[in-house]
C-alpha cells in the first residue's frame, strides 16, 4: 500500500489556499488594534524567547531585551487605530476607493530580528492574510508572534521557510499573492523580483545604511546618544549609522571620534556586544590596522571608531565599528547624495538643519539617539505603511 506524501511546495500551496480563504480577515474596529498590539506586547515580554533569540541572532541577551522592548513600544493601540483611520478603514464598511487584497507574502531578512513584526502586523491590521518566509538565520520571533495571535488573526498568518533554490516553493509562495514585500540585499531583491508574477505587487526594501551628522561642538551627551544608535542590533541594521560626519575642523572631528569611542565603551556596560563571528573578528582587525595607518583609531574592547582624514576608509565590518569624517557644511549635501537610495537613515545632531539633506535621497530623518527606534507607522523607504497592503482604485 502506497502512501501519498505532499511535497514541501504542495504543503505550502495548501497553506496559501487556507490563508486566502480567510480574506478579508474578519475585523471588529473595537478590538482589532488592541488584539494586535497585545500580541506584540506578549512576545516582547516573553522572557523565554530571549535565550533562543540571542543564540539565533548573535546578540547579547540585554540587547535582545532592549530590541524587543523598544520595538514593542511603538506598537500602541492608538498608533494602530490611527493607521486604520488614515487608510479609511475606520468605518463599518470599506471605502469604495480600496480593493481588497486576499494575500500578502513577505520575504524577511535576517539582520534585524524585530523587523518581522511590522509587516505581519500591518498586513493583519489592513485585514489581509499574510504568509512570511523567514530568514534561515532567525525565525523564532516571527513564529512566536504567530503563536501569540488570537482569533481570527491566528488563522490568517503563517510562517514558512524554504531553501533559496527551491523553485517549486517559490512558485507556490507567489502564485496567489496579491502583493509581496521583500527585505534584503539588492541582489536578493532583484532575484525575487524576477520570480514575482506580473500581477503581483512587488514592494522591495533593499539594504542600506545610516549616517549621522553632528556639528563641531557636539559634546559627550551627543556622543552618548549616537553610541546607542551604533550599538543597537550590534550595528547590523539598515538604520545603523556606519559613518559620522562632523561639520567642522579636523581637530573637532578627531575629538568627537574619541568621545564616541568612550561612549561606546560605556554602552557596553548595559548593552554588551554579542560575540564576534571569527570572520568578523578578522575583518575587524584588518579594518582597525588600516584605520590606524591612515588616520586615528580609537579602539575600545568591543567597539572601534576611526577618524578618517583621507575620506576613503571603507565602512567597518559592523558590530560597532564607525568611521568619523570631517566635512565642510557646503559639502554635506553632495556627500549624502552619493549614497542615493541606499541612505536609509540620517541622524541629525543638535542644530543640524534638515536643509542639508539632498532631494534625491529619502532617508528616515531623526534626532541622534533615535535612529534605531523608528515609529512603526513611519514611512519606510519613502513608502507609507499601507503600501502593498491596500490597492487603491481611481475615484469615481
Amino acid at each position, binding site marked *: 500500500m502506497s502512501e501519498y506524501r505532499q511535497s514541501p511546495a504542495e504543503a505550502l500551496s495548501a497553506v496559501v489556499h487556507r490563508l486566502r480563504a480567510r480574506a478579508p480577515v474578519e475585523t471588529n474596529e473595537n478590538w482589532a488594534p488592541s488584539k494586535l498590539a497585545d500580541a506584540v506586547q506578549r512576545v516582547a515580554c516573553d522572557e523565554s524567547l530571549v535565550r533562543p533569540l540571542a543564540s539565533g541572532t548573535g546578540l547579547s541577551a540585554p540587547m535582545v531585551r532592549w530590541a524587543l522592548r523598544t520595538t514593542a513600544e511603538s506598537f500602541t493601540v492608538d498608533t494602530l487605530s490611527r493607521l486604520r483611520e488614515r487608510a479609511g478603514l475606520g468605518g463599518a464598511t470599506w471605502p469604495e476607493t480600496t480593493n481588497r487584497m486576499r494575500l500578502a507574502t513577505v520575504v524577511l531578512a535576517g539582520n534585524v530580528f524585530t523587523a518581522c513584526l511590522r509587516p505581519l502586523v500591518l498586513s493583519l491590521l489592513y485585514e489581509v492574510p499574510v504568509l512570511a518566509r523567514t530568514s534561515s538565520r532567525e525565525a523564532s520571533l516571527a513564529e512566536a508572534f504567530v503563536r501569540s495571535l488570537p482569533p481570527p488573526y491566528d488563522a490568517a498568518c503563517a510562517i514558512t521557510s524554504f531553501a533559496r533554490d527551491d523553485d517549486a516553493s517559490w512558485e507556490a509562495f507567489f502564485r496567489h499573492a496579491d502583493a509581496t514585500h521583500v527585505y534584503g540585499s539588492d541582489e536578493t531583491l532583484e532575484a525575487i523580483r524576477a520570480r514575482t508574477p506580473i500581477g503581483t505587487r512587488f514592494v522591495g526594501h533593499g539594504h542600506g545604511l545610516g549616517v549621522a551628522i553632528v556639528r563641531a561642538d557636539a559634546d559627550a551627551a551627543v556622543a552618548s546618544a549616537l553610541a546607542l544608535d551604533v550599538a543597537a542590533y550590534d550595528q547590523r541594521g539598515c538604520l545603523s549609522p556606519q559613518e559620522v560626519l562632523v561639520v567642522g575642523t579636523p581637530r573637532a572631528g578627531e575629538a568627537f571620534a574619541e568621545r564616541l569611542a568612550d561612549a561606546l565603551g560605556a554602552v557596553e556596560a548595559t548593552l554588551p556586544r554579542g560575540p564576534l563571528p571569527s570572520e568578523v573578528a578578522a575583518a575587524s582587525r584588518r579594518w582597525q590596522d588600516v584605520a*590606524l595607518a591612515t588616520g586615528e583609531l580609537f579602539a575600545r574592547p568591543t567597539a572601534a571608531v576611526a577618524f578618517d582624514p583621507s575620506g576613503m576608509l571603507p*565602512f567597518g565590518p559592523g558590530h560597532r565599528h564607525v568611521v568619523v569624517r570631517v566635512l565642510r557644511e557646503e559639502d554635506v549635501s553632495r556627500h549624502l547624495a552619493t549614497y542615493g537610495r541606499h541612505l536609509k537613515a540620517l541622524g541629525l545632531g543638535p542644530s543640524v538643519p534638515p536643509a542639508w539633506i539632498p532631494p534625491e535621497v529619502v532617508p528616515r530623518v531623526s534626532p541622534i539617539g533615535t535612529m534605531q527606534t523608528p515609529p512603526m507607522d513611519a514611512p519606510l523607504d519613502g513608502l507609507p505603511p499601507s503600501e502593498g497592503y491596500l490597492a487603491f482604485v481611481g475615484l469615481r
Partner: protein
Amino acid sequence: MSREALARRIADAIDAGDALAPETRDALLADLRAYQAAHVVPYGRLVRGRGPDAAMPTDVFRFARVASHPDTDDVRVFRTSGTTSGARGEHPFADLSLYDRAAKAWASRMLFPEGSMRLVVLAPHEDDAPDSSLSYMLSRFETWFGTETTFCWKDGVLDVDALRHALRTDEPVALLGTSFAFVFAEDALAAEDTRFTLAPGSRVMQTGGFKGRTREIAPAAMLSMLAARFGVGEDRVVAEYGMTELSSQAYETTLVAPTAPRQLRFPAWVRVTAVDPVSLEPLPTGETGLLRIDDAANLDSVCALQTADLARVHADGSFELFGRAPGATPRGCSLAVEEALA
C-alpha cells in the same frame, strides 16, 4: 641606518640568493622596518599602535601614500587593478634598481634556469600599461631573457593572429600571461580548434586572478587547460604569485623540482609567515592562516605586508595558497551597500 646602507645590504642579500642566512635576512628586515617606521608615515602610525614588528595591511596602499620619498622623486608608480571598493592601490618607486635586481635574480632561477629563449607574452607591454607592475616585469624579461619577444595583448584585447604566429616555431618558447588572458586565448583558440605542440623546453607561466574580467577557472582546471591547449606537460606550467605592493615574486617550483609537489616559493630575501587572522601572531608551521610577506626588496615603501590571502607555509619556506580569506558576510546592510556603490 641610512637608505644607502640599507640599499647596499639589500643588494647583497639578493646577490647571495640561497646562500643568504635566515638570520641575516631577519636582521635586515628588522632594520628596514625601523627605517620605514621613521620615514613612511602610515607605517610609522601603525608601528606606534601595534609595535615594531607590525605588518601593514595591503589595503593601506589604496588609501594612503606608502613611500619614504616625496612624490616628486617618483620614477614609477605601480597601481593595482582595482577591487570591489573601487580605489586602486599605488606603490611608488624612487628607484627601480632593487626591483629589477630581485625580479631578474629569481626569474633566472625559477623560470629561465636554461637562459634566454623566445618569449610570447599575453599581457600588455609596459608602454601600453605603464602603471602595471606585471607589464613592467614582463617588459624587463624581454630585455633580460628574450631572444625574440612577441606581445600578444594590444589595446585591451588578445591578438590571436600574433599569438598563433608566435607559437608556430620549432624553438622552445616561454609563454607568459595572466589567467584571464589565457581564458580569452582558450576561448579564441578552441573556437577554431587550434592546438599547439610547443617545442621541448617550452614553459607556460600564468599569474594573477580573474577580477571579474572573464569566467573563473579553478587552478587544477587551468593547469590541464594550458597543458592541453599548448602541448606542454603539466610539469612545464609555472604559476607566479606577485603583488603590486611587492618588489619580489614567488614562483612554483615546477621547473626546478619537477618531481616535488607543486608549491610556491619566494627567494631567500623574502620571509613568508602564516598568521592568525585576528591576533596576526605567527601560526605553527603547516597551519593555514593569513599570509604575511616580508619582502626585503621593498626599500622605499614597506617591507612587512599583511595580505588577506589564506596560505599554508611549510618548513622549507614554500607555501600553498587557498584564495582570499572569507569576507565578513554577516556584517549587515553596509557590506551590500558598499559593494553596490563600488
